């Protein structure tokens, strides 16, 4: 459509640039703080340009951890987060894709009940049933373990739903042709359905990876041994050291370290991520 409104175009870009500035600013500030020394915040005004403690701060956190907060080196917490995020993502995708396969491609007694059970209960955030869930984990002896970190959050309504929606859009004839071609259910699943779901699996992996990485309350509750700490709860422990005495430079270094991996994942896989996110709900 031919439309020439220079002022409106200018306004559009202005709004976007201001918006992005607002969105980016807190992180910029955090980055600045992470390059400064511990005493540079006392003056009352936060500096707006990078300092020269970049290597100091990141080196300290990654290598030794903060002695005062009693955390491990960030390197090992980042490792734990990576393990948790990958296991959660893979696990969620694996068990959800087979559930969705059962729900869409079979008709059996209890199908609707199973679907609603998955859908309803998995929507219940951990926060609302925190005590009894904690108790179950404790009774099963899963405190302070990777299985405790991963297995209880591995069921997924979102992923099951995405796969269900996707399977429903696959033409009916695809499965009928496969059946005429002599493929049984599991053969159809491996030969046809799984390859067709590749993009969805990848997109979902990104979303679930971020979900797993950003888990907060769950690791906070079930890990008391530092060797299982994840980085997101680690930064909170770092910040929780008496407020007045907070080492802002280190806390912000931690925030940057904790946020960087998932942010990079999104930026480099933006197309897949957007597809995954928007289609999950559509």
């Amino acid at each position: 459509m031919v439309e020439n409104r220079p002022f409106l175009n200018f306004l559009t870009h202005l709004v976007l640039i201001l918006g992005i500035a607002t969105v980016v600013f807190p992180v910029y500030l955090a980055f600045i703080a992470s390059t400064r020394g511990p005493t540079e915040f006392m003056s009352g005004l936060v500096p707006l340009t990078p300092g020269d403690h970049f290597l100091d701060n990141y080196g300290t956190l990654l290598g030794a951890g903060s002695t005062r907060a009693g955390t491990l080196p960030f390197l090992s917490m980042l490792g734990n987060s990576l393990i948790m995020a990958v296991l959660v993502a893979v696990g969620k995708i694996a068990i959800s894709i087979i559930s969705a396969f059962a729900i869409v491609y079979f008709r059996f007694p209890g199908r609707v009940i199973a679907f609603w059970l998955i859908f309803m209960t998995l929507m219940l955030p951990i926060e609302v049933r925190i005590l009894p869930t904690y108790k179950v984990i404790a009774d099963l002896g899963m405190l302070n373990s990777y299985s405790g970190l991963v297995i209880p959050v591995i069921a997924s309504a979102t992923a099951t739903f995405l796969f269900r929606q996707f399977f429903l859009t696959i033409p009916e004839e695809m499965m009928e042709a496969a059946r005429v071609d002599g493929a049984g259910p599991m053969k159809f699943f491996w030969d046809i359905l799984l390859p067709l779901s590749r993009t969805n699996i990848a997109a979902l992996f990104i979303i679930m990876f971020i979900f797993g990485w950003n888990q907060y309350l769950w690791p906070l509750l079930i890990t008391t041994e530092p060797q299982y700490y994840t980085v997101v709860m680690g930064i909170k422990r770092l910040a929780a050291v008496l407020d007045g005495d907070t080492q802002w430079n280190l806390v912000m270094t931690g925030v940057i370290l904790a946020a960087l991996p998932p942010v990079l994942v999104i930026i480099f896989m933006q197309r897949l991520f957007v597809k995954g996110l928007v289609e999950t709900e559509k």
Partner: protein
Amino acid sequence: MQTKRTVFHSRILPYFLLAPQLIITLIFFVWPAAQAIWQSFLRQDPFGLKDTFVWFANYKRLIGDPDYLNSLIVTLTFSVGVTVLSMGLSLLFAVCVNRVIRSQRFYTTLLVWPYAVAPAASGLLWWFMFNPSIGIIPYILHFLGYDWNYRVNAGDAMVLVIIAAAWKQVSYNFLFFVAGLQSVPHSLTEAAAIDGAGPVKRFWTIIFPLLSPTTFFLAVINITYAMFDTFPIIDATTEGGPSQSTNVLVYKVYADGFVGLNLGPSAAQSVILMLIVVALTIVQFRWIERKVQY
């Protein structure tokens, strides 16, 4: 509920396929939820030795508890604040991005990444900016004659958590609004343009009404997000204070149950929250199902 018109015939295979998901659901979701419901009808004696079945006494006490009522109001304010702020901004950004042609991808990339930042980290970022002694915003506000301090001022604390929560949610809403805007057929806006409607009028009379399903869906999602997923933000910043002013329902459940060890009342709060989740889920599901039935 939908299946394929032709299905595989197998008596046991579907149950095997569903088993992992169902077992985890039963052990870690249904069982604890059932426990919470049971627990909500019990009261423990002060020594934690004996449980008495008290019917709805815990619920009655909750309804009469000014702290709980306060928490309800706080949650409402917080949820509405987060929803309006983040949806308003994202709609604005989405409309702008939809207008530009060449730099769409560039702007989108710069707007979507906060989605990946952990809520706890987002809380800390804004906590740092709003810190009364060293934060940059109080410093600026001071010059404008406002003495900012979220540690003593309830309003300031609420603004802090709303901004921190909304900041993270903008990218999510933005992506959905962009998708919604791009699904509005060009022929409609072109027809409106031929009918003599300018860009602003076109937006309010054609595009915005067509976006209403997206808007409604996002409103539900945002309320759900604000009510349940913002626990880390509260915990990393205000911890419910000052004097309960940001003590939203999920945080209160945690604080009363896990920290205060008030089992019965905390369980009753859990049950109420579950009911809210179920209600929101049904609303959400109806929306999705409607879109699927083509």
